[in-house]
């Protein structure tokens, strides 16, 4: 499967038209969608129209941008004007946003061709995409298994060549864990690097949009298009967006030898609960880094294991407030039968939300309720401080930190749906990173005996996306995992 740069060259040299590229992508979707079910809505007509506009531009001799004519997909929790945005929830079944999310606007302006909206766990709450109210997405490497979640549709679509790159959102691992399960690159940027305007809010202090791609370079190109200050998001960070892809080409870091890159391996992520094959693949990847000249050491982050319980107070608390807006009044579905307003709210929400969403709203409401606030919410916010401090200490000694992305490879559909807590555990290693607002990516580092991808998580310090991408690419160039594609 071709990279963005290769496709761009083909378009510029007229070896292939943007229309042909889009049509081939749509055919690939037609052929694979019965098995994968990655998409909730396809936008074939507007994709063809956009591609034709790019072709007209090329024909007139104008230069085109790197993303112009490139087929992409958008996670269905990002608003698209005139195109349904359901968050995979019944409560937004008929919702057609009157505006574009900032990232959608940026990608349109960059000339990217969106082929559709991808499936997710309802309101991005989940780790397998099985919480979608509409369909279960298959993992391209074994369609009986889950693609991970919550951005499972985007991860599967990129892995299966249903698009070149796709957007995801990551609140506790929702980009990195599915990237790991589907064998692609997934990056969660520093909190505030990418605008959240138009991203349907789950847990606002943790949510962040980022790219899915098949190579580190594609992720870098796509991230650059997504990033940047936005006055419509009050948590958006000011400052220029680096040219991430150009930094990858730079001579000075072309070779790690002599560069004394210091990698800290988070000790607490190895041990009980970690699959032996995942353990083996990650340790083999660390060997590769050593051979490339990096210094690799174990580092302890003692509060790392408290990330998960902290998250399951903070995220549901924020969710319970954010999801209060779904009341059946201004948009979405409404349960009509109720006689009074309160009854209408309660019935609308009862019918519109799935079990996991209700569960998190209930936990959050409980944690914020009078008498429990200090014991749960305030306590979790204090532990969050300790977790941030642990990372700070580690980054005083190391350039990047690494761990497995998830303790296991993709599990079978239905295996964990009845046990919420065991489902939560698959995000054990990604969650602390969101609590600390740090950038982090998952990249393929092997396959288990069943042929399922394994992911390596690399964590950077605040706004160190460039270093993160450089370090990831060094490994990618020394390995061949990214050249393997699932057979469907």
């Amino acid at each position: 499967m071709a990279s963005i740069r290769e496709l761009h060259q083909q378009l510029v040299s007229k070896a292939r038209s943007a229309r042909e590229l889009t049509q081939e992508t749509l055919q690939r979707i037609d052929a694979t969608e019965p098995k994968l079910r990655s998409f909730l809505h396809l936008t074939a007509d507007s994709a063809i129209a956009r591609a034709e506009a790019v072709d007209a531009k090329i024909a007139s001799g104008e230069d085109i941008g790197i993303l112009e004519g490139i087929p992409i997909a958008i996670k269905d929790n990002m608003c698209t004007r005139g195109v349904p945005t359901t968050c995979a929830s019944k409560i937004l079944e008929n919702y057609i946003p009157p505006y574009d999310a900032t990232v959608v606007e940026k990608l349109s302006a960059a000339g990217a061709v969106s082929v559709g909206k991808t499936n997710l766990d309802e309101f991005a709450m989940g780790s397998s995409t099985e919480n979608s109210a509409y369909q279960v997405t298959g993992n391209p490497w074994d369609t009986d298994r889950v693609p991970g979640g919550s951005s499972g549709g985007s991860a599967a679509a990129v892995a299966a060549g249903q698009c070149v790159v796709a957007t995801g959102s990551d609140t506790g691992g929702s980009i990195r864990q599915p990237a790991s399960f589907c064998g692609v690159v997934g990056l969660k940027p520093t909190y505030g690097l990418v605008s959240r305007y138009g991203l349907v809010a789950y847990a606002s202090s943790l949510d962040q949009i980022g790219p899915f791609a098949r190579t580190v370079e594609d992720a870098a190109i796509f991230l650059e298009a997504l990033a940047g200050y936005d006055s419509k998001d009050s948590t958006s960070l000011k400052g220029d967006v680096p040219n991430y892809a150009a930094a990858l080409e730079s001579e000075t870091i072309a070779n790690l030898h002599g560069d004394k890159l210091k990698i800290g391996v988070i000790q607490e992520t190895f041990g009980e609960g970690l699959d032996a094959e995942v353990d083996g693949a990650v340790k083999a990847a660390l060997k590769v880094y050593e051979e490339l000249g990096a210094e690799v050491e174990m580092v302890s982050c003692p509060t790392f294991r408290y990330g998960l319980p902290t998250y399951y107070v903070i995220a549901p608390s924020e969710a319970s407030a954010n999801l209060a807006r779904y009341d059946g009044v201004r948009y979405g579905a409404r349960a009509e039968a109720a006689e009074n307003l309160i009854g209408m709210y309660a019935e609308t929400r009862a019918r519109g939300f799935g079990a996991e969403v209700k569960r998190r709203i209930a936990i959050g409401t409980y944690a914020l309720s009078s008498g429990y606030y200090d014991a749960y919410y305030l306590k979790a916010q204090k532990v969050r401080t300790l977790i941030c401090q642990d990372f700070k200490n580690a980054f005083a000694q190391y350039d990047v930190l690494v761990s497995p992305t998830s303790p296991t490879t993709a599990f079978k559909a239905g295996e964990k749906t009845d046990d919420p807590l065991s489902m939560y555990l698959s995000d054990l290693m990604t969650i602390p990173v969101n609590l600390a607002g740090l950038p982090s990516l998952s990249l393929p580092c092997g396959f288990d005996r069943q042929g399922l991808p394994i992911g390596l998580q690399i964590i950077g310090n605040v706004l160190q996306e460039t270093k993160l991408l450089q370090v990831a690419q060094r490994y990618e160039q020394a390995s061949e995992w990214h050249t393997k594609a699932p057979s469907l």
Partner: protein
Amino acid sequence: MLEREEVKKVAHLARLALTEDETDAFTGQLAQILDYVEQLNELDTDEVAPTAHAIDMRNVTRPDDLENYEHREDLLNAAPAREGDFIRVPKIL
């Protein structure tokens, strides 16, 4: 231990109409999750300040200027029950 009555109270606060079966299931599941969360008490946080946002942030303000909004009809059409320029809701009083 979380009681069934507490789940009912929380459901009311959150405006969620739960069935009897859902209430039973949630009582067990929420108790399990809260029990898991209890491990946070292993950490001494008496002298620790809370973190609401990991990245240091300040309030953002701007002048309250009027701007025209182009998609008024789309907003009204998004409502489940529209009547002219109004959104219908069940009787309040």
